[in-house]
């Protein structure tokens, strides 16, 4: 389980000075007008749950993930991984996490298998079983036969696959994936998707950041929207279904004024050829169906037309699509 508690990150205007706590006293050399990269983020990812992190460039998604995995320090607040603070109890917290960065960066001169074994050493893993495990991981991510190749010779997609192998090395219970699908080919995307679903089933807590909103929409149990460093909303799949932009599309055999009047009594309704479009996200589709049948109409088609995540996101941040 992952928990962000009031996490803020502010990069100092003067980079020779350490970052200042936004709530703390002003210090010499600090500019007060600088916008924080992350501003009081509160978020929880439960075990067996995938939470998608959505936001524009510079919204703070990568900063949040970097703080959570311990490569960046928060200016204020804390991140706990399975109850362990990532700064104060780094060893305990990091032992159960895996991270795939947006742009994986590994020692270019190292061989893939050597480097995985080197990383395994930090998890207290060594010997022949570890070597076998590393080989099997490389095989799983599609790097079979490249064990001895230098990581520096890998393409961006292969580096991403290698990063996935490195992230899975310690069988993590908490996974941070930053733009996981960037640079992957269709096979890699399918593998990643299946992997995520399988890890979720095994009880892994997964925080997934991506610009590919359809993937986020498909994979995530909940979606967290970050804008200008702040968490502006967290929404579940069910809530997204009933979002204000969702509509009910209804087709009956003989559409007439009576059907339209009934639907308008339920909510704002427009006609689209032979179809009625009811913009009332909270309405129960089964009840609408029953009422239409009771009034003598034969319902040919009735389905919820959900607002897509992209439209929802832009409506949320107040920008036109």
């Amino acid at each position: 389980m992952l928990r962000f508690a009031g996490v803020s990150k502010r990069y100092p205007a003067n980079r020779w000075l350490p970052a200042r706590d936004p709530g703390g006293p002003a210090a010499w050399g600090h500019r007060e007008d600088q916008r924080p990269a992350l501003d009081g983020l509160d978020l929880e990812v439960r075990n067996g749950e995938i939470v998608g992190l959505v936001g524009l460039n510079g919204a703070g998604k990568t900063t949040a993930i970097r703080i959570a995995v311990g490569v960046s320090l928060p200016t204020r607040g804390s991140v706990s991984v399975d109850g362990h603070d990532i700064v104060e109890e780094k060893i305990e917290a990091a032992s159960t996490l895996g991270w795939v960065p947006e742009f994986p960066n590994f020692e270019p001169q190292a061989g893939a298998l050597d480097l995985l074994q080197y990383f395994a050493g930090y998890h207290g893993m060594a010997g022949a079983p570890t070597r076998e495990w590393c080989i099997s991981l490389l095989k799983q991510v599609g790097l079979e036969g490249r064990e001895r190749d230098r990581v520096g010779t890998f393409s961006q997609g292969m580096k991403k696959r290698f990063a996935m192998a490195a992230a899975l090395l310690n069988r993590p219970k908490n996974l941070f994936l930053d733009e996981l699908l960037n640079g992957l080919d269709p096979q890699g995307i399918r593998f990643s998707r299946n992997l995520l679903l399988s890890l979720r089933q095994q009880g892994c807590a997964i925080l997934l950041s991506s610009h590919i909103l359809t993937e986020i929409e498909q994979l995530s149990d909940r979606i967290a929207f970050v804008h200008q460093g702040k968490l502006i909303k967290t929404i579940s799949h069910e809530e997204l279904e009933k979002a204000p932009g969702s509509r009910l599309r209804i087709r009956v055999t003989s559409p007439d004024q009576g059907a339209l009047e009934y639907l308008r009594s339920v909510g704002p309704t427009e006609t689209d050829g032979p179809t009625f479009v009811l913009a009332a996200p909270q309405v129960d589709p089964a009840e609408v169906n029953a009422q239409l049948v009771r009034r003598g109409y034969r319902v040919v088609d009735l389905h919820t037309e959900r607002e897509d995540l992209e439209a929802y996101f832009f409506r949320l941040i107040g920008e036109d699509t």
Partner: protein
Amino acid sequence: MNSFVYDVLRVLRNRGVLLVMLLTTLLSFVALTIFVAVARPLSAFQVNADQTIVVLIMGMIYAFFVPILGIQSGYSTYARDRATGVLESVMVRPVTRERIILSRYLAVVIASALAIAVALGLLDLISVFETGYALPTLQLVGLFLGLLVESVAFAGLLFLLAHLLRSPGAIMGSAVVVFVLIDIVWFFLLLFVGVFFGGLSTTSGLSRVVGLEYVDPSGFPLLVMAFVQGGLFGGLIQPPGGLGSIGISVPFLVVAGLFWSIVPFLLALWLARTRD
């Protein structure tokens, strides 16, 4: 493989480190050959004095090049990894920032010690080959310790620069500037100061030169050699009041050695703990 052993081997396998040691040994060989060719026919030195001069010449060559060894090993072990983001692939593991920087620094210390020991061993072999005599053990040990402190000090400066600058180019560029200032400009500065304050034959002039040598990590091997050889410049310059009167004594050398070995690294360690 153990992560620490991997880091040590990585330094030793580094082409830059190997090149520096090869170049230094090669230059030592050339210098020694020239020295033997010039000095022997003149019968200018006795065996002991010969050996002292040999150690001095070799020490000066090594002291000039060893900063490059320190810079290269510090850069390839820590500074480059930090600047390019490679270090993050380690930071995400169950290991503290302090442990990472300390482990890599120790790897540099051990790799430097091995590289210098091998180079001095070769130097000893060259001396036997050229002059027929092995070099005095005490002088070699002194030179080894002085060069190790020098190498480690420059590596520590690289560790520190890695936390002050962001790009590999800026770090390496600054390291080159530091090398030129400390290794070359400083040498001429202390000669000038020595002459200006009464020449190298007076206690006043010598103590100022020694003071400046303490401020400069590349001067440390020369101070250690002065101590083990009983005088400056291969024992040719004897201060009127003894070496202690110009500040060359065990306590000063120990403090300076510890300072240069530890302080740049401790500053880097502090920055590693408190800054991204």
